[in-house]
């Protein structure tokens, strides 16, 4: 049974790897709280669904889906750059609008891909089960993306992106046109989210406009779990940890469903996973130490420091 759960976790988890990498790029590397990713996931899914139903090659349909996702991300960037809107606010607006865009693209609330050729249809032709085909395709995509990101973030251009996410003034002082880097970073991140949406739709054989609901939290859960596996600041360990994180998250979901969790509680479980991981990461040691007086004092010192150093940023 465990092996079956692991297989399910790997099968589904790998499809969400592009989304998690996109969230990491936007929030981790660029330090931009971009919720557009959720909308791009839906836009990618609907674009891929419509193109596949129209008989386009799976690679074409996923490629166009990524372009649609990038375009969605660029709308957020334009709002940020031209109207000087905070990224969080801009992305909430765009993600909301993207929901309607999905319905426009699909001309309905849901579509079936039954009988079409998807990115996973090749498995049938070479005598693999659907699950094996899914795992191989997902692993191939994940491997490719990790390799590309690993290369990209080490190039001069990639370093300028990292610098922009760290400190805009420093980056500009080094000659980086930071507004362009933010645009590129969010476009790539949203293209990745859209690819994830396309893969999920191809894999489950139908598209429903609601698949994007709460998907950002799934990505966040995967990312937070993954980042808890490594303390390294180097790119390779982080990327590998992110892939592992999303698979482990799907394993937790599959296990919960297997032992009889009410599927209605799934979103609650996802949010709980994020909270628990953050709690363990930041508080794990101090909880144990509150058993002693010194420990309690230490945790009071840490808590006061957090409150004293807390910062607010108005985004209107």
């Amino acid at each position: 049974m465990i092996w079956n759960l692991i297989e399910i976790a790997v099968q589904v988890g790998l499809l969400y790897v592009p989304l998690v990498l996109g969230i990491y790029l936007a929030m981790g590397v660029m330090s931009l709280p971009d919720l557009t990713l959720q909308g791009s996931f839906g836009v990618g899914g609907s674009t891929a669904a419509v193109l596949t139903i129209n008989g386009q090659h799976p690679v074409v349909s996923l490629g166009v889906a990524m372009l649609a996702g990038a375009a969605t991300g660029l709308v957020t960037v334009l709002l940020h750059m031209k109207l000087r809107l905070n990224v969080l606010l801009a992305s909430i607006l765009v993600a909301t609008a993207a929901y309607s865009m999905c319905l426009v693209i699909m001309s309905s609330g849901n579509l079936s891909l039954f009988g079409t050729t998807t990115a996973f249809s090749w498995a049938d032709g070479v005598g693999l089960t659907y699950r094996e085909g899914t795992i191989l395709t997902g692993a191939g995509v994940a491997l490719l993306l990790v390799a590309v990101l690993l290369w990209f973030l080490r190039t001069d251009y990639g370093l300028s992106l990292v610098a922009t996410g760290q400190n805009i003034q420093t980056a500009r002082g080094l000659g980086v046109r930071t507004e362009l880097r933010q645009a590129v970073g969010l476009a790539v991140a949203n293209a990745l989210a859209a690819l994830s949406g396309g893969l999920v739709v191809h894999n489950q054989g139908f598209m429903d406009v609601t698949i994007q609901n709460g998907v950002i939290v799934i990505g966040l859960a995967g990312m937070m779990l993954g980042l808890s596996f490594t303390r390294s600041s180097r790119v390779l360990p982080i990327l590998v940890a992110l892939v592992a994180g999303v698979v482990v998250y799907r394993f937790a979901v599959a296990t919960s469903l297997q032992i009889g969790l009410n599927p209605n509680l799934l979103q609650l479980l996802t949010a709980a996973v994020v909270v628990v991981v953050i709690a363990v990461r930041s508080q794990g040691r101090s909880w144990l130490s509150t058993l002693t007086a010194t420990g309690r004092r230490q945790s009071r010192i840490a808590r006061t420091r957090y409150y004293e150093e807390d910062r607010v940023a108005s985004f209107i």
Partner: protein
Amino acid sequence: MLRASSDPTLDLQLSGCTKRFIAPGRELVTAVDNLSLEVEAGTFVSIIGSNGAGKSTTLAMIAGNLLADEGHVVVRGQDVTTLPSWRRIGLVSRVRQNPQDNMVSNLTIEENFALALAGRRGRFPLRRTSPGKVRAAAQELLEPLGMGLEDRLGAISGSLSGGQRQAIAVAMACLGSPAVMLLDEHVAALDPNSAARVNAATERLIRERGITTLMVTHDMKHALDHADRLLMMHQGTIVVDVCGDELTGITPRDLQQRFAALSGGSLSDASLLAESSPA
């Protein structure tokens, strides 16, 4: 308009530069008021003045972090008045007071130099500058500092001390020999020992390369002892401008008194304290 732009001996010309801000309370404040300044190539200029005198605003207008409301900024014959900071990197480099603002903290020294090199070339290609080239450029600039930093190129820059980071920042700012180097109280956040070391390193680097430098400082003695020319700013204008032989005859005390006389007696608290103490 660019009368002297043909003059090859001038590295920096400000003509009629004005910068106004809307202060909290909707009051319009003139930070820099119709300021004109010409600096000859290779000159080391110190700028002193109380808080709010417009020193940093002037540097920001030269670096492009702020654009002048009126007037022109010409660097080595090029009118850069409307260019943003990232496009002036080949001509102007600026070192700020806070070490965190001068280097990307979570990248290594080598990666910071790679970025600075790419920035000077004006291209950030989709490949990595050959590590050999980056290391050679970094070592050439870091070795003369005598701080052993050339052997720590792989260190994450955030793990270095403030003094080390400021020294590296000055070295990075020297890359590609910019026309003008701006030092904005770059040792103000350091302890006296580190400040002295970074000052010595700075002077060696800019003297060797003959880089035109504007340094904002509150250290009047250092300003007098080391600079070729000294400017004092007050309320957005230059009130004292001395150079050459004139400089050698001035003591910090003279400077305080001259400042008091020129600016109508409104000295900063620190200056008043320094004035009243016999030391």
